[in-house]
């Protein structure tokens, strides 16, 4: 193993791999360290949606829009494997007239932010996706959204990074980070020590553990999401769909399009904020992603269960019931697999990207939708470290948006 | 048991070494004797408990090869239907001057009838001579394994083990 590097990235998920690629373009001696394998965690377990309609105004939306801009170019010029990137648009379904009403205001607001989302009637929705149940009363459709194969995309970034000179170690765990007068000077891994002045914490749901290695509290928690995969079937869906929660009161309807589990009530979140304790499986959103191979990936049911990656009957049953209700023909389709993995969670639904109070220690973690953010985040982070001009401002994504952050470090 | 495991039937040499196969002298001395063609040490002993005269022993283990005590065996044939491997026959070598009787466990329907004739087949399935059915027995206690008795020429009685009708 190499003994030194200009920068070490911890974590071989989509964020770490994208960061490695953009950094390696700018500087020599970039090392990425992954304790399992590339895309072995969240980045290999997700639905691969690259969406903007669900993103919050600010860094969250800017990063998603920037990524939608960059991906086609990466596919054309950089990636040496087909990441199954398809710009088929994204669709959010709803099920009551109250929700259709609430959607109008939401569309106006999103349009004002530059998100080209449109309101479709039930009939228009079914003309695009005939397999959908008649219970669908309408949808929000955004043509400028895409889907991709998450494994291939993460791998493509990793290979692009290697081509740019980065070194990737898999099966190696970072155990501690050593400081010299408050600045990063080296890291210790299961395979030895590496001297470096820049460390990027891209450890996804484990960002808290890595943060603690330099005495920082990084409030990212594992949000367990469960999924099912169907057998391969003839084409049933064209694009990835999201189903909202059924809302029967106008109060519920108004909340239909609030995506992040924002537990902060609009205030700055506190550094000690914990994930909600109540079980939220019942209120999970529905996802159906048709893959290139003809399987349909179905999700999701979420809860907080630490790092327990077992599936639960309750969750899988909820997904199956939603699937049957929304796409009735799935009733006769076999499920071949199920899994649980962790979506990195923060209290306000926004990732943590940027520098910290510890010199040389950067964070790029807590992405609830890392597939939609990775190219932009990688690019921005590389810019920050090398001092080049930023394509998008990191803004509120910095860790110091959390109240109590100063006192902690 | 080279022949048994490569071709699926016992060779003459292999056969004569088995403790359940009576010696020619014994066959000649008795009216009818069991002929136990069980050549592998598998865990199985219903023949032992089936014999009303204690002529068959399987010891020291259930996997030991069955041994026949030709003094005690009177050729009653109970063990033929009891053997799950259908590996026991009855040979009456002195039936007549020129003919012998061979009794065979048989589980194909319809059952042949007395008087039916066909080719006698040896262990490899080769036709080796004429055979006539002289007896067909299938009492309830045999549990659907019939015992058919064929009449063949004496010199093929140690080989004839099936009849092709």
């Amino acid at each position, binding site marked *: 193993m190499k003994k030194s590097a200009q920068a070490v990235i911890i974590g071989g998920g989509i964020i770490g791999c994208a960061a490695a690629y953009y950094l390696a373009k700018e500087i020599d001696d970039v090392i990425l360290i992954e304790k399992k394998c590339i895309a072995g965690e969240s980045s290999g377990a997700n639905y691969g949606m690259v969406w903007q309609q669900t993103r919050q105004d600010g860094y969250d939306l800017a990063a998603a829009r920037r990524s939608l801009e960059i991906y086609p170019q990466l596919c054309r010029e950089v990636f040496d494997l087909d990441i199954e990137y398809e710009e088929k648009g994204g669709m959010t379904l709803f099920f009551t007239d109250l929700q259709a009403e609430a959607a109008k205001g939401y569309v106006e607001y999103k349009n004002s932010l530059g998100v080209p989302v449109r309101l479709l009637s039930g009939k228009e929705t079914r003309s695009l996706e005939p397999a959908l149940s008649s219970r669908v009363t309408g949808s929000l459709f955004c043509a400028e959204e895409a889907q991709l194969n998450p494994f291939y995309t993460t791998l493509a970034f990793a290979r692009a990074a290697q081509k740019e000179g980065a070194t990737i170690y898999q099966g190696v765990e970072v155990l501690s980070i050593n400081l010299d007068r408050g600045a990063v000077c080296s890291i210790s891994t299961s395979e030895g020590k590496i001297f470096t002045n820049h460390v990027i914490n891209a450890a996804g749901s484990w960002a808290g553990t890595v943060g603690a290695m330099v005495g920082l509290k990084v409030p990212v928690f594992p949000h367990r999401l469960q999924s099912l995969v169907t057998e391969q079937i003839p084409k049933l869906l064209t694009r990835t769909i999201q189903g909202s929660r059924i809302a029967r009161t106008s109060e519920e309807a108004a909340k239909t399009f609030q995506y992040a589990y924002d537990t902060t009530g609009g205030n700055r979140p506190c550094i000690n904020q914990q994930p909600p304790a109540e079980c939220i499986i019942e209120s999970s959103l529905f996802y159906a992603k048709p893959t290139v191979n003809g399987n349909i990936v179905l999700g999701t049911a979420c809860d907080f269960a630490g790092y327990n990656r*077992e*599936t*639960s*009957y309750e969750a*899988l*049953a909820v997904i*199956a*019931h939603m699937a049957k209700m929304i796409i009735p023909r799935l*009733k006769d389709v076999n*499920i071949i697999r*199920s899994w649980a993995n962790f979506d990195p969670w923060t209290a306000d639904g926004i990732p943590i990207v940027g520098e910290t109070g510890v010199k040389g220690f950067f964070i790029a973690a807590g992405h609830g939708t890392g597939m939609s953010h990775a190219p932009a985040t990688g690019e921005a982070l590389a810019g920050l470290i090398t001092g080049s001009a930023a394509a998008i401002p990191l803004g509120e994504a910095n860790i110091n948006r959390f109240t109590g952050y100063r006192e902690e470090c | *048991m080279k022949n*048994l*495991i*490569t*071709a*699926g*039937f*016992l060779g003459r040499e292999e056969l004569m070494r088995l403790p359940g196969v009576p010696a020619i002298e014994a066959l000649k001395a008795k009216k009818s004797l069991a002929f136990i*063609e*069980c*050549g*592998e*040490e*598998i*865990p*199985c*002993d*219903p023949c032992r*408990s*089936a014999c009303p005269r204690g002529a068959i022993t399987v010891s020291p*283990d*259930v*996997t030991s090869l069955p041994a026949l005590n030709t003094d005690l065996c009177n050729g009653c044939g109970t063990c033929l239907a*009891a053997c*799950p*491997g*259908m*590996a026991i026959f009855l040979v009456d070598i002195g039936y007549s001057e020129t003919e012998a009787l061979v009794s065979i466990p048989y*589980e*194909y*329907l319809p059952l042949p009838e007395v008087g039916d004739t066909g080719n006698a*087949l*040896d*262990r*490899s*399935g*080769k036709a080796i001579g004429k055979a006539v059915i002289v007896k067909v027995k299938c009492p309830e206690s045999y*549990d*659907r*394994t019939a015992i058919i008795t064929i009449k063949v020429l004496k010199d093929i009685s140690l080989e004839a*083990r*099936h009849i*092709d009708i």
Partner: protein
Amino acid sequence: MAEDLVIIGSGPAGLAAAVEAARAGVKVTVVDENASPGGQLFKQIHKFFGSEEHQAGIRGIDIGYRLLEECHLAKVKVMLNTAAWGIFHSSGNATTVAIKNKNDSLCSLDTKVVLLATGARENPLAFPGWTLPGVMGAGAAQTLINLHRIRPGNRVLMIGSGNVGLIVSYQLKQAGADIAAVIDIKPEIGGWGVHAAKLTRTGIPILCSHKIIEVRGLDKVEEAHVARVDREAKSIPGSEKLFKVDTVCIAVGLSPMAELAWSGGCRFAYLPELGGHVPVHNRSMETTRNNIYIAGDISGIEEASTAMEEGKIAGISIARSLGLLKNECAEELIRNKEKNLSALRGGPMGKTRKLAKEKLIRLFNIC
């Protein structure tokens, strides 16, 4: 309301366990995906081997009827047309068994203990033409003739000379089919000599060191091409044989059906002698996950007779773990069943299995 014991699979292992446990006072529910109980037993129309304790000399199908009668007397509940598709650990000590019932709806059973007695599946074998109608598993052919009374074809080539290949060939012949040959790629017959001898004396050739090259036919099997092989299992030029057949049966081994044990989080070991990946278990048939037990072919491919003994051990152990049997009493019963098992795994033919089973149990204690 939580059940005491849910048994998945109503084959010999599942039913034998159900009877033992229910007799000790355990509330037992057995689920099986089929329309009738018995697993493989009702296909076994031949007389079983073993000793008196193992019901030797009795036909498998009749052992099945006996077991069902005992289940009935012991008030075991059997849910048919019910497939279990998942094992989950619910809160507390309970286990949730996810099932799909007759009406295709999802539901679940909460239970203190689960016994997986799901049996095995046939291994496939791919060769040119293997997807033609008329190529099938030997077990499938056996189901057709012995359960549904349908003869799958008139002239059959059997691939594989293990006990399954030999017995199914015999039963196909009983059902009126011609067996063109039994072939095996190995130089020696895999199954027992007595099963082989039953075939050869009727004129069915058993060809060792032979392999299937191709099956041909327009829209169904019409002919099978076979060749002799050398020591490296490569076909010897000039040794090809052609069999005009309408059915080709594949009997190249079974693999434990252990998906539910994976889903339940049990630790596995790879033991080819037992059919591949098998859940590790202890003397009581308990896996590395508390309250998940296994018995029968899922714990290593053996026989119905061993499956029943293992089932009984599991049933007794479960009754003990639920406090319904005193330890000394359970121990004595288990020792007795272990003696039966040891007899069944005796002799040179049982030795490999015996050693592998012992290894599986040893692995339980090694983390």
